[in-house]
């Protein structure tokens, strides 16, 4: 899948706006992303492995609900990860 990051998350991936990750599900893709870039992992995922409520995930433009993290994805699917609000 193609993972696209926005704004405040970009600094944790050396300002790459798109990353290609080979994974069968959204959850596996985020885990691989976190393994490659641990700071993104800390920002995105809480200590029980859930995506933080401060972030929104879209798959091919459709919002991904809280219970849909195991959704299967293909190599051409696009995952957008957006930060809701930051307070700096």
């Amino acid at each position: 899948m193609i993972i696209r990051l926005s704004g405040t998350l970009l600094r944790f991936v050396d300002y790459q706006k798109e990353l290609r990750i080979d994974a069968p599900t959204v959850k596996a893709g985020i885990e691989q992303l976190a393994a490659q870039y641990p700071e993104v992992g800390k920002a995105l995922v809480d200590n029980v492995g859930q995506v933080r409520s401060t972030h929104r995930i879209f798959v091919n433009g459709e919002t991904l609900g809280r219970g849909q993290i195991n959704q299967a994805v293909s190599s051409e699917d696009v995952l957008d990860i957006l930060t809701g609000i930051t307070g700096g």
Partner: protein
Amino acid sequence: MRTLRFDVFPDVGAFTPLQLKPHFILSVCFNGSERWSREYGVPHQTAIRDLQTAFVLQVARVSYHDRYTYTDADRLSIAITRQSRRNGSQVEVRASFETPGGSMVAESSLCIVPLSLSDASGELAGLPAPMPPSYMSTFEPSERLEEPYPSPFPGMLNQIIESGELLSSYQYPLFINRHQCEFVDQWFFVEAGNLAAASREHMVFEQGARLPLLRRGLSLPVRELNLLYSRPFYLFDVGKVLTRAFRSHEGVVFVHELIKDDPSELHALVLERF
């Protein structure tokens, strides 16, 4: 209610040929909010570090009064007030700008929303939440209001669209650069006004010969500016400014919608009255 007073000495860069730039007024108002907090409340850095509380802007307003250009006076007296509203889920900041002779140049107000920050996030991500009790206790009783901030939205926009005559529309591309961002790569709020102004000026440049009324958007000073922030922009975000000009009984009004592409969402609304 406590008022913080200080003087500023605007340099030539703070002015257009016609007036103080809205950018300058909003920056002084926002900075005045921080100065007030340092004097009477909790500094922003302390709130972030110790209370996991940060603030983002939701509404900003500027209204101009007496004429004031660079050669009129070398200093302005600023008066800042800060109040909790809606039981701690909003903060209202008010600023007035007066010359030494007592002439009221402009007034500004901000509605700022507190966020509860995510614990382990280095990006200061958060969700809206009321200010914690230790922060609230720094406000005097007269500075704690239950009523919400008196936002001009959506009423003012509806009134412009329903009663005004649409003169023309325009679309201007938008790309967020780092110099427009702030500490966490989120855009600096006053940039909304600048992006809207850029769209208006391009509209006047391209359509002013056909629609001379549009040129009031450059030849007259702005009388009033209202900004609503729905979602933040971030570094590298791409989008557009959709600008519409209306003729109203008071003059010309420009309505700007700042929209991010992919996913397409409205991020800010800017209303300028001339």
